[in-house]
């Protein structure tokens, strides 16, 4: 099988994680189930992960997408650290998307930091799936 064909057949692999101390994980678990139902392979790291833990896991799992889930306002603290770890590890083609309770005002800031897209609380599932399919490395 050619490399291109192999990549095409391989399921999209998404790594979802909480970051830091915040354990509000209802949204993270729901999105994991929905992405699985959409045919993606999903790894949920769970709670109490620090940025380096998340990126180490993304390397181990060869994840195509990294999806940190935030609620407590710590997105501005941990996103730069996640991006820094991604850069160190050379994960240039891995798609970083964030979800959770995030003020509209912070979305441009997160994008400047290196998050490709933000899906806030109250998002529907279909746009998330479409976004991942259209923007994941191939």
């Amino acid at each position, binding site marked *: 099988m050619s490399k291109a064909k192999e990549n095409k057949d391989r399921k999209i692999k998404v790594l979802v994680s909480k970051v830091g101390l915040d354990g509000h994980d209802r949204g993270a678990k729901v999105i994991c189930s929905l992405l699985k139902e959409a045919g993606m392979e999903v790894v949920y790291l769970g709670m109490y992960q620090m940025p380096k833990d998340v990126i180490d896991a993304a390397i181990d799992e060869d994840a195509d997408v990294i999806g940190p889930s935030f609620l407590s306002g710590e997105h501005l603290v941990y996103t730069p650290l996640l991006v820094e770890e991604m850069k160190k590890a050379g994960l240039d083609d891995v798609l970083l998307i964030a979800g959770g309770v995030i003020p*509209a005002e912070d979305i441009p800031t997160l994008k400047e930091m290196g998050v490709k897209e933000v899906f806030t609380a*109250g998002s529907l599932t279909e746009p998330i799936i479409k976004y991942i399919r259209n923007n994941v490395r191939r």
Partner: protein
Amino acid sequence: MKATEKVVPVTEQKDVDWDKYLAAYYEKPKSSLTWSGLDVKEVYTPEDLPLEKYNDIGDPGQYPFTRGIHRNMFRGRYWTRREVIGMGSPQDTHDRSKILVEEGGSGLNTIADIPYEMGLDADHPWAQNEVGLTGVCITNMYDMETMTADIPLDKVSWSLITASTVAVVTMAQYAAVAKKRGYDLKKLRGTVQNDPVHFRYCGFRPACPLDLSVKLGADVMEYCTKEMPLWYYTTVNLYDLREQGVTAPQEVAFGFLIARLYIDEMIRRGYKVDDFMQRFAFYVSCHIDIFEEVSKIRAARRIWAKLMKEHYGAQKASSQQFRFAVHTAGCSLVPQQPLNNIVRIAYQALAAVLGGVQSLHCTSYDEPVCLPTENGHTQALRTQQILAYETGVTNVSDPLGGSYYVENLTNKLEEEIYKIMAEVDKVGGMYEAIRTEWLDRVFEKEALTRQKEIDDLDKILVGVNMFTTEQETTTPLGVQRISKASVKRQIEMVKKLKKERNQALWKEKILALKAAAERRENVLPYMIEATEAGATTGEMMGAVRLAYGYPYDPIEIIEAPF
């Protein structure tokens, strides 16, 4: 140009879909299910409410309290207008609390942040980035002194929202400060949430081992019953369970079964329910389906009264009464078109009041965006005040009592709640349902169903799956940020305290606490002494955790300093 001359031009709308307009004119609701999926009829008649059943309803103030715990209800006293506050440093939280009191709030209500609920000191390596982001971090007695400074503790009723095992620390810190300021503990009024069992489901599992949750929950209940008899020593939190995505009857069934874990522990310690149940309270969600929420509350009151009387043998009315505060449903709010949340919250608050609530927190409109801004907070209080002072809902007790529909729905919810309780019995009772993660699986399944209902338009959410607009780029009343400087100062003060306290006295008291926990004694009196000797939240929790065989640090990165 003068301000009065400025005209905002009317937006030009070129194309209108008139077919859509016509469809909307004739449109009927797609579903007639309640929010929790109960099937209801088009109309209810006297046949749905046989009068011989009235004894099962009773008048307000009469067993089984279906219609409320007081005969005169709000004519006797308004519900407490108690907005939850917790942000930044103890000083920031103190200041915001006083603002809301000045604006007409009638109860103080402060919430712990994530490090505090986890039992981590502000200087814990994992806590430092998160101090004050979601509440207030009290690491020692001096933080509690700052938060409560110059507030007359004998005049206020203070609700302390610490839900995890750390509630016992919060009580020790509050009691120590009150004693230092010369107050008689027996006269203090207030509430501590103290429901560690449920809190494992809010992301605090490492801080809430199941055995310690029941033990420490009961320690607070036992101590307050003896030493602080006016204090509500728990508000068993049904609200947080509902926020996991479960239905109205699941909320009550699961919450009641968790409440029974504490009551059974108190009975095991040799108490009778009439000795201690007078100060047992609940925290309930009010979601958007007004009639279902009112019926849920009415059913809950009836079930609780019967359970207390028939199962536990409670004789006193105050041991049979279901007393509750309401937190309007945060999970029903969305960031899209955020001002709409004010309307959602108002309906939910109305349901709470029609249900006979004792104390109410109206969520602020910016709940799905950030911590409340000062304006957002004040607006939420205004929602309560409009309801209390303008609408006339306070005139009559249980105004929906006798409604064919509401009485029927109350009966139906009661049946559903009993059915769910029986399911938990089948898996071996609540302790087993938690230990085996049966309850986790229920929560996950229900949360997924809720999202699919929105995705599939089975439930309408304005601004999300209908009547959508472009994504907002700003939040109407701004975003609440936390002062990094004030948090930094707090962390430095903790470090200073740890260096400068009387080390010999501190060590003696913290070891005494650990020894008491090892002897399985009530730890709260030892915590008061330890906190007076400068022991911190993390140290005191760590001492108790070690005595029960758990790692000192729930995150497992720092070692015990004793």
